[in-house]
């Protein structure tokens, strides 16, 4: 503020712009930069000239033109598109979030763009071709949960991006025509450091892959898809002993003794491995080859490996330094007990259901597994836990053991399921969480919940930023509480809850300080949404109408703040009010 006062008094600023810019160029945190830009006009300008990396949490909150006008020197762009519930088929196809308009703008404004990281965006093959041709210095492409492209698009990237360092293709819904895209990397191309094609389905040309791995001496991350067999994996590993992250292919191939020994030997060399994933179709016979490579492992992703409890226990015995673990619930409570006993440094646990659609409660994990982990892993702060039964008492004990939770995502898979021992709602469980875990940033609730849960959240969860609610609550009051009581709330996503227009409208003033609100299968009507849109012109209030349904019901509502005004590319089923 000194700057401003000085200017008002017509004296020169304390130091020249160049110095300020130099200083600000060291600031990398988004939040810090945001704060800096608010200090004064000089600082705003210095900040915008020195920002090189931009994060856009909702692609429709701002337009490409506004971005390029404000930030002239961007090298790295991260953009998120569709609402998160699109991961669960709640958003119809062709909803939007197409990257092309952005790429057009960037081509003229940021011809030296180096990195593009997209999540839940639609990316066409044409866009990938455009990207590969227009940005000669392009280095890193990361696509997570995107759709709209095919392996043809990847071929363009491989062929044309001569300086590519990172190609990370994760969990995308794409058309997989063939693995030939891998052959498109030129023979003189050696810069690749990160290659992740684990979720593609087709066979790649193994010779091309082997040659690529051999010549890219800086390759540190290699995650192959499940068509790569064990024998092939071994050949890749011996060519790249410098890898720090490995995603294996299928672990099913039958090996003879010599092949087994060679594979074990290959893994033996990886003393610096910190991330391991893949292991599709793994059988206990081959697990031991991994053990020598696990000494320094910090992240083990077994979420695609069907393991039993004893198999997991053996693996974990070799992973003393593990910080992040993803498993399938086939490991059971017994497997989780070994997590508690073998991994004292564990900070993150995700347990995915192997058979989510079965009502059989004898599969999977229960509250005892979670309890066991909490007893042994006191540093645990991130959990995603799918289970079929839970009790209030267990959760209360868990958070006593681990009070530092920042992310607590509990999914009791049967909607409206009460505490199975007391038959009461799970309100007290979430009450305990928010009371004890003062650092809580993200919460996903489940089970039978009344408005009490939301009263607790409103009263205690003062650092909460993201809340996911499904099949919960008794009345509008629940949602009203949360909107009123959680000052840091940025993302609220709700489905199948009895919240209506009154709840929606009670948060009118709030939504401008949030990124977005999603409500589907609640009790909203078109009139309620129209009223919100009328009162709050800086919000985009969108209703997704999937066919000629009843005029007055708003089945899926997406509300978000935007400086770009209503969408110009909305498809016919998205009504902007």
């Amino acid at each position: 503020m000194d700057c401003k006062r000085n200017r008002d008094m017509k004296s020169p600023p304390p130091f020249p712009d160049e110095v300020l810019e130099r200083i600000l160029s060291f600031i990398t945190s988004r939040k810090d930069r945001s704060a800096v830009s608010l200090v004064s006009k000089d600082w705003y300008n210095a900040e915008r000239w020195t920002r090189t990396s931009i994060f856009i949490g909702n692609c429709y909150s701002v337009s490409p033109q506004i971005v390029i006008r404000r930030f002239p020197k961007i090298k790295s762009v991260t953009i998120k598109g569709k609402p998160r519930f699109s991961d669960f088929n709640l958003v119809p196809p062709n909803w939007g979030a197409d990257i092309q308009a952005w790429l057009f703008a960037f081509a003229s404004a940021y011809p030296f763009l180096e990195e593009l990281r997209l999540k839940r965006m639609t990316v066409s093959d044409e866009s990938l071709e455009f990207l590969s041709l227009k940005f000669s210095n392009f280095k890193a492409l990361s696509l997570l949960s995107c759709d709209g492209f095919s392996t043809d698009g990847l071929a363009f990237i491989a062929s044309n991006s001569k300086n590519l360092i990172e190609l990370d293709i994760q969990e995308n819904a794409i058309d997989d025509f063939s693995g030939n895209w891998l052959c498109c990397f030129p023979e003189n191309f050696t810069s690749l450091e990160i290659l992740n094609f684990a979720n593609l389905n087709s066979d790649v040309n193994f010779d091309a892959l082997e040659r690529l791995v051999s010549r890219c001496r800086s390759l540190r991350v290699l995650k192959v898809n499940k068509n790569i067999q064990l024998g092939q994996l071994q050949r890749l590993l011996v060519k790249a002993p410098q890898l720090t992250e490995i995603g294996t292919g299928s672990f099913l191939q039958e090996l003879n003794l010599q092949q087994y020994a060679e594979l074990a030997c290959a893994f033996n060399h990886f003393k610096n491995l910190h991330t391991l994933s893949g292991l599709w179709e793994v059988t206990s016979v081959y697990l031991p080859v991994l053990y020598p490579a696990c000494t320094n492992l910090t992240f083990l992703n077994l979420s695609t490996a069907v393991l039993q409890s004893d198999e997991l226990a053996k693996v974990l015995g070799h992973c003393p330094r593990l910080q992040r673990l993803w498993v399938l619930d086939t490991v059971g409570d017994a497997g989780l007990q070994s997590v508690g006993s073998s991994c004292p440094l564990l900070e993150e646990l995700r347990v995915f259901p192997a058979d989510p659609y079965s009502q059989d409660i004898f599969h999977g994990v229960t509250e005892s597994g979670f309890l066991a982990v909490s007893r042994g892993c006191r540093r645990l702060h991130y959990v995603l836990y799918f289970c079929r039964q839970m009790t209030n008492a267990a959760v209360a004990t868990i958070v006593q053991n681990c009070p530092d939770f920042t992310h607590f995502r509990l999914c009791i898979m049967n909607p409206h399921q009460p505490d199975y021992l007391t038959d009461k709602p799970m309100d007290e469980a979430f009450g305990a969480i928010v009371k004890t875990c003062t650092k809580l940033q993200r919460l996903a609730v489940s089970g039978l919940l009344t408005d009490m849960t939301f009263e607790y959240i409103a009263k205690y969860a003062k650092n909460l930023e993201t809340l996911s609610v499904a099949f919960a609550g008794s009345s509008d009051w629940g949602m009203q509480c949360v909107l009123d009581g959680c000052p840091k709330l940025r993302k609220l996503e709700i489905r199948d809850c009895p919240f209506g227009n009154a709840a929606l409208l009670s948060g009118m003033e709030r939504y401008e300080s949030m990124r977005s609100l999603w409500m589907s299968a609640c009790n909203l009507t078109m009139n309620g949404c129209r009223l919100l849109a009328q009162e709050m012109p800086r919000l985009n209030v969108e209703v997704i109408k999937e066919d000629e349904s009843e005029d007055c019901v708003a089945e899926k509502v997406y509300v978000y703040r935007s400086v770009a005004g209503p969408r110009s590319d909305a498809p016919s089923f998205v009504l902007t009010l």
Partner: protein
Amino acid sequence: MELQLGLALGPPIHNPNKCLDLKICGFEPNEQVSSTPWTMSCVGAKNEFHVKNKRSSIEAFGSVVEEEEGQKPKTTLPLVSWSDQPHEEEEDNCGRGKICKRLIIERNQGGIVGWPPINSLRQKLLYQNRHPHQNQHGRIENNRTGENRPHSRSNSMYVKVKMEGVAIGRKIDLKRYHSYQTLKESLISMFSKNLRSELDVSANYTLTYQDREGDWLIAGDVPWRTFINSVRRLEILNNNGSLYRLGSPWFII
């Protein structure tokens, strides 16, 4: 408790007024949503299972159960309730540990859209894990080539739809639907010009499909997911005698 539900294309016989029920419009703080199985504008039709609180109608594969305050719920269909708990509770009792009434068709492979919240990639992985080398008919299948499941990787799944007596067939993308109800509504809309009378669709027409083994079956007998994995073609047949040539019993509840 599993039930064979007849997928009548029309409203349940016991409640004819419901089919013509008109929407409630106008802004009210706690608006009721009245959804019927018939009107194409059904709210609940989009999801296989539409959960609402006790004030609103719950739709389930052609039946309507309505709970209004002070009224006893009228059900003609015994539907699977959640965890075998007593299910005639008022919402106010939730606080005392009893669950509210929620109806569901089948949890196994026919449940709620997008629940549990697992992304589609993981769902595919789970399916492949459960059936690594075998499909449900017991034949060995190499799922790596994916030829037997052409829709497993792509975003659309077009199948031909023919209506008996109509010269021109159509195509429909089955990936856009999550339940028989929404599929049938779309088909009704698609062939609306050819239907003798929209109100009597269930009485006059039956939706059949050809599975991957070449057999023609009546749509609706198997869970949605099973149907999606085996359907190759659809045909809408007239009820005048054509049904009997299929030789399958037709359950109507």
